[in-house]
């Protein structure tokens, strides 16, 4: 790059700024971990909790699990089912739509992309309330399937953009070859395109899964009686005032997502997110 960056003094400067950002990023994670693992008298029960607690315990987790096991289990399973439906549906709808988009005239695909893009502008709260009224009539209210159907709206446009970006990067010759050899449209889609696009589809699935796992707005309105994990945390931290359990649950919610984020950081470059809009 430019010669200025090779200057050792500048390099040191960049490094120091980078370290500061890393520390600021890690402090909240650190607080979450010590509240989950340190004895309560040194964290939430202390008026001025010490920055470096000295006694650690697993009893916060054991307490959260044993005292709440049935509620926690139900919330965990509900989150898991909902997120998996959201991810699977997103990939199924998104993959076909993306492939269709790649076969359309530019004007038509631009129109469809803008319809999808426009749907992301509608606030979840604005549509969650009419949806809750309809779901109540349809018997989908408070169910994992109903919640998944609503959360799908948050992830579907993004999934289409991501998979579209993946499809654009595939070599065109292979598909052409398959068609010349007599493969039909759908056959070449499943036997040639699908295997090639797997990494991008997998990344889209993980991202959708993760966004559903974290989703709050639809979950609090459409599924308040049998809550998902984020809503359980919300109820514990506000209504029940149980910060300790909320923190233990929070760590439980965070661990799988952190793992997914680390996996995704290889897949997700900014251009994935922007390809549908700039491309």
């Amino acid at each position, binding site marked *: 790059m430019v010669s200025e960056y090779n200057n050792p003094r500048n390099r040191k400067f*960049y490094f120091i700024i*980078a370290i500061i950002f890393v520390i600021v990023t890690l402090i*909240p994670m650190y607080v979450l971990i010590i509240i989950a693992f340190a004895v309560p008298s040194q964290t939430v029960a202390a008026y001025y909790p010490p920055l470096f607690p000295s006694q650690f315990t697993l009893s916060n987790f054991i307490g959260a699990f044993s005292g709440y096991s049935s509620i926690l289990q139900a919330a965990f399973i509900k989150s898991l089912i909902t997120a998996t439906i959201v991810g699977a549906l997103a990939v199924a709808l998104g993959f*076909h739509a993306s492939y269709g988009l790649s076969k359309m005239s530019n004007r038509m695909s631009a129109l469809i992309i803008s319809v999808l893009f426009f749907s992301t*502008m*509608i606030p979840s709260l604005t*549509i969650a309330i009419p949806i809750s009224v309809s779901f109540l009539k349809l018997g989908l209210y408070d169910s994992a399937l109903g919640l998944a159907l609503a959360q799908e709206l948050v992830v579907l446009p993004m999934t289409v953009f991501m998979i579209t970006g993946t499809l654009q990067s595939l070599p065109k010759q292979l598909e052409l070859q398959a068609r010349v050899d007599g493969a039909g449209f759908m056959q070449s889609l499943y036997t040639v395109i699908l295997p090639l696009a797997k990494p991008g589809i997998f990344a889209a699935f993980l991202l959708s899964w993760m966004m559903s796992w974290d989703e709050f707005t639809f979950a609090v309105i459409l599924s308040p009686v049998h809550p998902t994990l984020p809503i359980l945390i919300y109820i514990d931290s506000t209504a029940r005032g149980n910060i300790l359990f909320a923190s233990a649950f*929070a760590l439980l919610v965070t661990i799988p997502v952190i793992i997914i984020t680390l996996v995704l950081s290889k897949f997700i470059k900014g251009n994935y997110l922007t390809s549908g809009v*700039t491309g």
Partner: protein
Amino acid sequence: MVKWRNDEWIALLLILPAVLYVLILAFIPALQSVYGSFSTLRAHNTIYNYQFVIGTFGLSPIVNTFIVTASALGLQFFIGFVVASLLSKPFKGREAFSAILFLPFGVATIVTAVIFHDIFSSYGGYANTMLKLLGGHAIDWTGSFGTSLLITVLADSWKNTPIVSLILLAGMTTIPPDLYSQAMVDGAGTFQRFFRITLPNLAPFIAIALMIRGISEFNIFAIAQDGLFPHPLLTTMTYSLFDIVNPHPSYASATILLAFVLIFAFFVMLYRSRSSKVS
């Protein structure tokens, strides 16, 4: 891409499910919300709901939403630019640095709210422990408008700045380095290079980041609802009016939210189209 006869029709059929999905689950409920906002249980074509909402809450939810959105966007873009410029330079440990900075993206919004509530409590808490160690006085963080705004914006930005950095970084990699070296030969300073080269060339990426983050900021909900921001916002007002038996007042509130989001999106698109004409 490869095109065969009838492909366009099959392509359309492949896209149809995704498009129908957002039409049925996003656009129709949004229209229901707008239509319902002008009805009550007894009357139609009335502005009673709006009068009720404004009469009960005043204009402060609208003003507060704007203040939170503007502050959060300001902070996220400032840090986003700094982080993206850092990451666009080669330095030791850049990969590890970007992996760590990306971590908060994987922490659920409600978890972020819980953590920041533990740090910035009304009484005691980690931030106050720090203040005491430094010889200051404890602060009731949620007590005043200014401090609750500060902690809300900090919590929201901690989680969401990575996505801004990521998009800006993707944009920075598209700027040819020659432009910078030429500008330096011509004697342009750091700030001049930023305003004359980086900013104009990044316009489409800034527009995308602004769109994604701006819409989300108008919809900021979980963090405020969890108690970090006890003052009314358009979202928390909508939620507090939410009632399945008589959803009409919440429809009015939700419609105001929708209107502001659409106006915001319109201005971002205007900025994008104008900036693309210049470059």
